[in-house]
């Protein structure tokens, strides 16, 4: 098979892009084929583990968190930043504002005179500068399609079956991806890493703190719910059209529905088991009819994830470009009684912004990418602003790119400016939520991060100026109060293993490279 260089951008966009690169006509299908030919049977080989042994304490249920987060915040100073323009992402723009970071949390935020520092606090004069919550990218493939982008590192999409709900993105994340450091220099403090979009069900996503670690567990956002990646439209039918299907959009829908029916049956088996167990346990031990504890059903990794959606534990993130398809999916979610959390790459969200608001579904969008495939033909620069204009809406700007993730602030700025020119009332205090509070809400972590409010994690970016300007730079990035990036201090710029010891290549790496 001929090697073809996949531009990093394109590889990262497996789901989104699929257009041939200018001089390297590698297609998504090429990447898909490169990912492997053999069908996995992981879901069939899952064996009962020790954790499932029945005990006196209760029924034996699979662990919902077998790869738990080991993330711990790094040491932090008490920091008072004063004189800044603060966008709280909770609806306010505060001029001459101050923020106090203490014990990894936001202790206070407000007008200058309202926030005072305790003794020993580090004080930073931020006159002329801006402060926002840490940026959150709801759609990233960092670690799964890392740099360097080679066939050997292409781990983002298990393109072996239209339903790979059994795979978990975290098991592909390479924590040494230099892309994480570049995103940090763009103010990104939290990311959702998703599997690619070749499949109807791509697998589980994982939410990460953008803090380097030797292990992916060390990056996992404590307590963040899991997500499930699903995909509409062109990608699944193109990839599987000649591999047994689905080969049409109706085939896509049939594929989802069949899987949900199976998942509902699986869920019922486990629900019944729990009920049976409770009834058994309630019986007196002296009861001659008590007998042995009921046996737990066999596990199936694929159905376990889908049942997790039906249980409301796992959030559905669905790649879906076209308006008509999104509304079909909303009906399907009603049919099987689950909630879609967000439509990603929602190019045509503006055509059905009312439906989305009504259903409480976020739309994650680009500001201006378009035309790489036909379902991306109808974008408008005002897309995010038109979604925003609906009451109770949830507009998100996402990247899906190792380059784009570095300047989500600029993407939000473009989308905001387009909306304003069209007469839509949207200001920086609103648009900042598109890259902070709204993704946090969609990812189920808004109680911990995403806005600048007292009590929340001190995930904070100090910008050199207005972040809705092309010239603004993230100067300092705090995660849980710890200064993880300082543009002026090379000692506060992470360098991944791949980046060191390469001085002969003039390659020094680091967040700001």
């Amino acid at each position, binding site marked *: 098979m001929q090697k073809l260089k996949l531009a990093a951008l394109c590889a990262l966009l497996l789901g989104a892009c699929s257009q041939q690169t200018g*001089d390297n006509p590698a297609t998504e299908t090429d990447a898909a084929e490169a990912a492997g030919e053999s069908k996995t049977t992981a879901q069939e080989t899952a064996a009962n583990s020790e954790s499932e042994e029945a005990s006196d304490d209760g029924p034996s249920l699979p662990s919902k968190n077998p790869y738990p987060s080991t993330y711990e915040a790094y040491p932090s100073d008490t920091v008072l930043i004063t004189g800044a323009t603060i966008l709280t992402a909770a609806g306010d723009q505060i001029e001459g504002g101050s923020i106090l970071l203490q014990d990894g949390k936001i202790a206070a935020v407000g007008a200058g005179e309202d926030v005072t520092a305790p003794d020993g606090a580090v004080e930073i004069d931020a006159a002329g500068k801006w402060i926002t919550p840490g940026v959150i990218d709801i759609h990233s493939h960092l670690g799964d399609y890392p740099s*360097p982008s080679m066939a050997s590192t292409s781990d983002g999409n298990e393109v072996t079956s239209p339903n790979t709900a059994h795979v978990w993105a975290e098991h592909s994340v390479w924590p040494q991806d230099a892309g994480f450091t570049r995103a940090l220099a763009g103010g990104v403090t939290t990311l959702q890493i998703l599997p690619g979009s070749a499949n109807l069900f791509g697998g589980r996503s994982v939410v990460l703190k953008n803090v380097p670690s030797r292990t992916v567990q060390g990056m996992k956002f404590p307590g963040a719910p899991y997500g499930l990646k699903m995909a509409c439209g062109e990608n699944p039918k193109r990839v599987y059209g000649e591999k047994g299907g689905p080969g049409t959009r109706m085939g896509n829908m049939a594929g989802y529905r069949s899987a949900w029916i199976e998942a509902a049956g699986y869920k019922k088996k486990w629900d019944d088991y729990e009920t049976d167990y409770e009834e058994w346990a309630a019986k007196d031990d002296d009861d001659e009819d008590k007998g042995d504890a009921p046996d737990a059903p066999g596990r199936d990794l694929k159905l376990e994830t889908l049942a997790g959606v039906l249980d409301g534990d796992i959030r559905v993130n669905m790649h879906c470009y076209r308006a008509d398809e999104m509304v079909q999916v909303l009906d399907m979610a009603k049919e099987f009684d689950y909630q879609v959390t967000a439509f990603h790459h929602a190019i045509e969200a503006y055509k*059905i912004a009312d439906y989305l608001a009504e259903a409480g579904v976020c739309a994650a969008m680009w500001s201006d990418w378009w035309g790489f495939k036909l379902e991306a033909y109808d974008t*408008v620069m005002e897309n995010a602003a038109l979604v925003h204009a609906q009451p109770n809406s949830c507009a998100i700007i996402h990247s899906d790119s190792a380059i784009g993730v570095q300047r989500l602030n600029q993407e939000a700025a473009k989308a905001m400016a387009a909306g304003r020119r069209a007469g839509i009332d949207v200001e920086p205090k609103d648009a900042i939520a598109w890259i902070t509070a709204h993704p946090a809400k969609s990812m189920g972590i808004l109680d911990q991060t995403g806005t600048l409010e007292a009590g929340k994690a001190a995930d904070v970016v100090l910008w050199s100026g207005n972040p809705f300007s092309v010239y603004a730079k993230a100067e300092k990035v705090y995660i849980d109060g710890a200064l993880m990036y300082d543009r002026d201090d090379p000692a506060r710029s992470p360098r991944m293993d791949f980046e060191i010891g390469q001085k002969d290549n003039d390659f020094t790496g680091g967040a700001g*490279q």
Partner: protein
Amino acid sequence: MSSTMMKSTMKSVLLGVSACVAMSASAFAQTVAIMNGDVHTISGNVIEDGDVIIRNGRIAQVGADLTAPSDATVIDASGKVVTPGLFAPYSSIGLVEIGADQESNDSYPEGGFSLGAALDATDAYNPSSTLIPINRAGGITRALSTPSAGDTLFGGNAAVIDMSGRVNSIMKPAAAQVLVMGYGGAARAGDTRMGSWLVLREYLDEARSYRANPNDYVRRPHEGRFLVSDLKALGPVIAGEQPLLVRIDGANDIRKLIELKNTYSLRVIVVGGSEAWRVGDALQAANIPVILDPLVNLPSQFEDLSATLENAARLHAAGVKIAFYNPPGFGAHNLRALTQQAGNAVAEGLPHDAAMAALTINPAEMFGLASRLGTLEAGKIADVVVWDGDPLEVTTQPEAVLIDGVVQDLGNRQNALMKRYRDLSRGDLPHAYRGGE
């Protein structure tokens, strides 16, 4: 250039709020006065509160305190920025509508098609592509419509076009030939750089031999490695008449390219150049410009390890002429984002005026059009943009775009869709009956 043709494509124009003008039917003959803007001439200093007078498609006068001719359409540019039209020096504009759909993507050959260098963008260029008005609204007035390499090393002849969308908008056919080297070249030549350089030298040797005596060449026996059509097309390259756009990134590869350029006396332009800053002095000495994406900063391949956001600033400091392009895969749909890319280069140390030159005069120079395009000077073609602020700022947009002195329609398919769905209420008739322009 036919004036009747231009008349026939003129439409009524709605400019931004502050620059609303009524168009005369006689578009080509129109006189336009852009008054009281900050005029970035590119050839000299910014003229604050300056004026640009346009007559018969050319810039007639540039200066301060000029008087608008009585027959002029006046555009009030107070508080606005006036620049030359932007020139996208490497894009598949007019060759692609939908990237992923082969039916609407003519930008490179597929399926083992054997010819490369002989392909010509003008054969496929579609002036009615929706990409043209969408990017024109972002201030792009000229572009190189550039084919990409398929299975051979060469992509074919690229053409300079104007972004008016009129039928005859090819300005300079065969303005450059396209070559892919680096890993992309190796992948087309036995998966090794040894293969790609060997094949390239053989192409050039054979092209020279063909050019010296075509009749003799075709009579002699050959191994059949190269097709005569391709060798013929490489004639202007080997003669040093036509620039060769070379997609190449790694410093090691670029050093090799400089050697080759000197050996064969070629005109070479580097495209990509993620590590070009490492060989900035050598590029300057060899007079090789670089068309780059200033946002590339990831070690995507071993040929990109030292990619940095400071590439543009460092190349400029070394005296290398630079211009910008959208990364591969986004090669035509978002030329309007070139200003954002340039703005980021400025944020990383490139002087603002150098970034403006990279968007205007530098590409014009690269393709031999500097006497006609790229600055606001009397006598030049009147490609002019009036911006509502700093052109490099992400929140800025053009309010007026002129090509060949003609005020352009800034409406496009995306605007039409936005207007159609601005109001989602059911109405008396479906959305399909609304805003059908």
